[in-house]
């Protein structure tokens, strides 16, 4: 029997969700809608007495203080007459098989009431929309706001409440590769394997030597293991670049820098799920940043939440398991004001993607109790069809547990955490091809919704198991599911897995689906037989499933069984070593952009206001306040600082151990605009920026680790690959010169969007994340002005480097003279500045990046609520510049704006000896920022209020 309960706010109270939706509807230009009301619907399948039903409503589902409800049996709602005429009702539910955590909680809550008659629960949401609107209005409200067909549908008549119960009937599938020609091989590959012809041929050759054909699961396993997503074949392959041949780009650039630097505090790099460095001799820190671009494009909320959920499992699966202590997020979207009519088919509007991603990351991170303390949000039209979502997590673990474990033959393979369903099948291979208009259809199964509480339970109990020494090795189930996790774990030993033992969300999964499913919130452990019982019992005590699904062997074979049948028997040697190396062509030639020719404006006030109000520069407070950035109690320098807690901090400082004064600084550098001119200088600038931010908050370069995350176009296109090579070379040069090793990284390639046969490539986007150890957090510096009468210094040299600057962008140009980096001078400068902050000589410090000196000065002033004067004729220049606008807005690297107390003037200047710096102004008690030009004339005067308003207005949503 089906029962439906509709819960909604008391009519006497505001319907907040309805009001928010009404605003969004009006934003669509549909102005005749007067009111929207939203109710939650719980559909329960089972046998319930009227008393039980009332109990469920009043004691669980409804809050009688603020809510009312309807409750009825069967589908036919008697609420219709409750709605007056001119009201349209739309009910939206998740598609069958899409996980909704609330359904689990509803069942649990009902069982707690000692009511056992409910077999299954499903949630849906009803929107009652009032006002004059046409069917097409209603359609576009559904399409643009209410429904995402990838995971949701409009409920019409009867809907599926119970998940499939039909059992899977075993049948072993083999594919006749032996008799396939190349076309047939590629047709098979396009069916979801995503392998190229050489790889398919090699597989055919391998099995012919065995004298048999492969099973479907053997092919899938090879496809997962050999996918770009899992092995990064481009970075590790052979690249012909001009007249040179690069063997393994990763080894010859990024990893090489780390090897040459040979820092003893690098404990585990490029070998585990995250890079590990020493923290204080007792503890270690690990850091990993991942991308989740494809899923976020199709289902922003689910894609982003599983993105953050996935990267949290990386530290958790590093060494013997680390406790996550902070998250970072960097997003790249199309402009929120992008016109709907220009939107390519099958693409969600940037504003919807932005809101969905924001909500997904916040809901998951907040529920996990991990502070989200650092990030960036960038906008460019080329991200419309292919947004980027980077999620990072830092974890802390005992140094003694920082090395990847090693199982022994005979150890049990234990799967812990969530159950396995059809979620995310082919996610890894899907991530290794270009998106098309069809992606929405073909890849629905590779999008899922996360369940943060399932993961929180997993973290809580795993760390207890770790401290009790109950397992020898741990890894996470990510892209490729069990296939990648167990396949990689068992490389040196061998393994036998009994797939019918894997706990399922619902019946009907084939052995192959079980093996490659990317269901979230799962980890794999190697457990000594003697410890299995204690481990399973511990997990059960906190309601987390732990299941023995196989054992490690010593035969270096991957063997899978289902109901006693051998369905996969692969040699580890071939699985991990048999992939033919890819060989790719790369070319690079510097593009030429039109050199701007416009006169210097007499007054620069409007230009500064417009840069402050640009999507990339403007305040991200709307996002930051919806992240819990205080949980765990370690935040020392918060994302928002200043007299009103609303100025933009350069980097976050966290105290990971409550009883220690040592800290970790996390920052990020990213500037795709420079990549349009030269990817080498884009990468160099990103590294310089990430390091600047660390020094700006009072850190130093002694113990800084870097992460690289490349989001790039299709690497089989030589120009994309040439740009990638340039960027990777810069990573090597900068890391070595600055003495800051890379400890981990990831690449996401094929970020191109096919529309009407034409491929749109994202801007080459390299995210550099940096993590620094800080000896004493009480030495930290914030960017807000502190005291009237203090002196304003600029440290660093300004050049005519307007290429890719926001100022040029504002005037419709890109230009060519992109900022360069001199890491030798840069390091000397940052070391000296670090010495000054160490001695407490710096009251405030802000790095000059987007918008140059102008934006840095404005932000420092309004964050501190104090005025400032700047004299451009005193700014140290690296070349002859006569234009005030160029000096004020140049984005030259390695520059800082500082506040120093007059009493510290001499000591500070002594400390900075040999460094390019100058006293350029002072802190005033005026309400304005005043800038004087090279000829002494005042070129800009703006009130703090208008500067701040320009900066806060765009994203005040």
């Amino acid at each position, binding site marked *: 029997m089906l029962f439906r309960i509709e819960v909604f706010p008391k009519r006497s109270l505001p319907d907040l969700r309805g009001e928010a939706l009404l605003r969004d509807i009006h934003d669509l230009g549909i102005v005749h809608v007067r009111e929207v009301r939203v109710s939650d619907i719980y559909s329960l399948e089972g046998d319930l007495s009227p008393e039980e039903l009332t109990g469920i409503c009043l004691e669980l589902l409804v809050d009688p203080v603020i809510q009312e409800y309807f409750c009825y049996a069967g589908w036919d709602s008697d609420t219709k007459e409750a709605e007056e005429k001119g009201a349209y009702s739309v009910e939206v539910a998740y598609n069958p098989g899409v996980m909704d955590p609330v359904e689990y909680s509803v069942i649990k809550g009902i069982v707690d009431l000692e009511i056992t008659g409910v077999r299954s629960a499903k949630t849906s949401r009803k929107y009652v929309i009032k006002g004059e609107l046409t069917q097409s209005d209603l359609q576009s409200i559904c399409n643009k706001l209410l429904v995402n067909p990838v995971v949701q549908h409009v409920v019409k008549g009867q809907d599926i409440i119970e998940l499939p119960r039909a059992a899977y009937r075993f049948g072993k599938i083999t594919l006749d590769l032996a008799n396939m020609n190349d076309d047939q091989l590629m047709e098979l590959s396009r069916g979801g394997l995503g392998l190229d012809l050489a790889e398919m041929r090699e597989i055919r050759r391998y099995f012919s030597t065995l004298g048999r054909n492969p099973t479907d699961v053997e092919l899938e396993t090879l496809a997962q293991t050999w996918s770009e997503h899992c092995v990064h074949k481009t970075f590790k392959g052979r690249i012909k670049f001009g007249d040179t041949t690069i063997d393994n780009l990763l080894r010859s650039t990024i990893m090489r820098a780390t090897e040459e630097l040979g820092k003893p505090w690098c404990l585990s790099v490029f070998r585990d799920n995250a890079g590990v460095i020493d923290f204080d001799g007792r503890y270690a820190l690990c850091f990993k940043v991942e991308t989740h671009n494809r899923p976020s494009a199709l289902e922003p909320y689910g894609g982003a939440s599983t993105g953050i959920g996935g990267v949290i499992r990386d530290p958790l699966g590093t060494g013997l398991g680390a406790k996550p202590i902070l998250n970072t997020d960097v997003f790249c979207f199309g402009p929120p004001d992008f016109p709907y009519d220009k939107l390519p088919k099958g693409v969600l509007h940037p504003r919807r993607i932005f809101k969905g991603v924001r909500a997904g990351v916040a809901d998951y991170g907040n529920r996990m109790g991990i502070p989200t303390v650092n990030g960036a949000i960038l906008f460019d039209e080329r991200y419309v069809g292919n947004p980027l979502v980077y999620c990072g997590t830092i974890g802390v673990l005992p140094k003694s547990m920082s090395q990847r474990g090693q199982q022994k033959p005979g150890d049990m393979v234990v799967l812990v955490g969530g159950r396995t369903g059809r979620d995310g099948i082919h996610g890894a291979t899907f991530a290794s091809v270009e998106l098309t208009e069809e992606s929405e259809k073909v890849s629905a199964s590779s999008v899922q919704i996360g369940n943060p509480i399932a993961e929180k339970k997993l973290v809580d109990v795993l760390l207890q198991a770790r401290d009790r020494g109950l397992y020898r090795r741990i890894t996470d189930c990510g892209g490729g599911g069990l296939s990648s996790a167990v396949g990689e774990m068992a490389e040196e030993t061998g393994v036998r897995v009994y797939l019918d033992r894997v706990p399922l969300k619902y019946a009907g999964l084939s052995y192959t689906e079980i093996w490659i499913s990317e269901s979230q919130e799962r980890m794999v452990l190697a457990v000594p037989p003697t410890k299995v019982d204690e481990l399973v019992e511990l997990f059960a005590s906190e309601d987390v499933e732990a299941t023995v699904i196989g054992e490690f062997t010593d035969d270096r074979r991957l063997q899978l069984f289902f109901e006693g049948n051998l369905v996969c028997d692969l040699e580890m040697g071939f699985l991990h070593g048999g992939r033919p190396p890819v060989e790719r062509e790369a070319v690079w030639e510097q593009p030429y952009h039109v050199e701007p020719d416009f006169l210097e404006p007499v007054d620069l006030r409007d230009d500064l206001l417009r840069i402050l109000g640009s999507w990339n520069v403007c305040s991200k407070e709307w996002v930051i306040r919806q992240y819990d950035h205080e949980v765990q109690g370690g935040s020392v320098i918060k994302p928002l600082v200043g007299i009103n807690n609303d100025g933009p901090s350069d980097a976050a400082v966290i105290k990971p151990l409550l009883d220690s004064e040592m800290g970790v600084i996390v920052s990020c550098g990213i500037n795709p605009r420079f990549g349009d001119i030269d990817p080498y200088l884009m990468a160099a600038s990103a590294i310089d920026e990430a390091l600047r931010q660390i020094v700006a908050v009072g850190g130093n370069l002694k113990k800084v680790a870097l992460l690289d995350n490349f989001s790039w176009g299709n690497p089989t296109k030589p120009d994309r690959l040439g740009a990638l090579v340039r960027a990777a070379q810069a990573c090597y040069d900068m890391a070595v010169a600055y003495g800051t090793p890379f400890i981990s990284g990831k690449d996401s390639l094929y970020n191109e969007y096919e529309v009407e046969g034409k491929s749109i490539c994202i801007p080459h986007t390299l995210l550099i994340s940096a993590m620094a150890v800080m000896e004493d957090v009480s030495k930290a510096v914030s960017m807000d002005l*502190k005291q009237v009468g203090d002196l304003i210094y600029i440290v660093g040299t300004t050049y005519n480097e307007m290429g890719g600057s926001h100022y040029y962008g504002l005037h419709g140009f890109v230009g060519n003279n992109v900022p360069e980096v001199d890491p030798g001078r840069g390091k000397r400068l940052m070391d000296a500045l670090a010495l000054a902050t160490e001695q407490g000589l710096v009251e405030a410090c802000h790095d000059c990046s987007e918008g140059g000196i102008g934006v840095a000065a404005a932000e420092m002033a309004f964050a501190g609520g104090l005025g400032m004067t700047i004299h451009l004729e005193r700014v140290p220049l690296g070349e002859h510049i006569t234009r005030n606008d160029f000096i004020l807005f140049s984005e030259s690297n390695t520059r800082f704006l500082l506040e120093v107390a007059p009493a510290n003037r001499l000591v500070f200047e002594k400390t900075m000896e040999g460094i390019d710096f100058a006293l350029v102004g002072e802190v005033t008690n005026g309400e304005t920022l005043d800038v004087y030009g090279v000829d002494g004339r005042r070129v800009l005067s703006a009130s703090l209020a208008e500067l701040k308003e320009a900066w806060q207005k765009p994203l005040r949503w």
Partner: protein
Amino acid sequence: MAKIKVLILRGPGTNCDVETAFGFELAGAQVDSAHINEIVRRGKALSEYQILTIPGGFTYGDDISAGKILANEVRLKLADEVQRFIAEGKLVLGICNGFQVMVKAGILPHLHDSSLHCLTLAPNDSGKFECRWVYLRVNGESPCIFTKGIRSMYLPVAHAEGKVVIQPEMRENLNVVLWYADETGDIEAGYPHNPNGSFGNIAGICDESGRVFALLPHPERHIQGIQHPRWTRDKLKGYGDGFQIFLNAVKWVEGI
């Protein structure tokens, strides 16, 4: 003398337990943290402790409504233990999600059935999760043991469902401990000083005895001066405003 024993009650999704334990330990107490299952399955007995704390978090994801499912577990599975604990004159502290759990379990505003469904914590008026620092004014008339000697505090809030809504008939005999205010102590300052639109700007309440106390803001996130958002501007203090709450609790138990 033996250390005061504090029990921190965890559920799936609790996430402020460690920093809350730190606050009590710094105040000289011995702290155990226990999963609700461990109490329900009698692995640990409430009676061994003098202070019970339900910390912040998103128990069971705050699915259905914030704290609801853990509240039902406490109400249906631990009713006797909790009643006895309070009857014995011991202390109970609920922070954020703990506040939500305590009102939905009928522990506050008063420990009897009529208390259930008379007060709730509704979604914030802003419709958003709000992570920001707020000024709090302490009600000098309140019998609350935890806030003795405190006149004002500066603490962070981080919640999506913090708006106190009360049935009209209950408004009279409500023991308000904390009001949202601005830096001058004005409790009518409005949003964002009152971050959620709470009735009467209420941020925390207690029972008649003053021994059962719950608040929305997070005292455990302002134990040390360096957690203050403006310590780089103002003088860096050793302890944060929130520490006194934990110290008061431990000192009071030591005093009896």
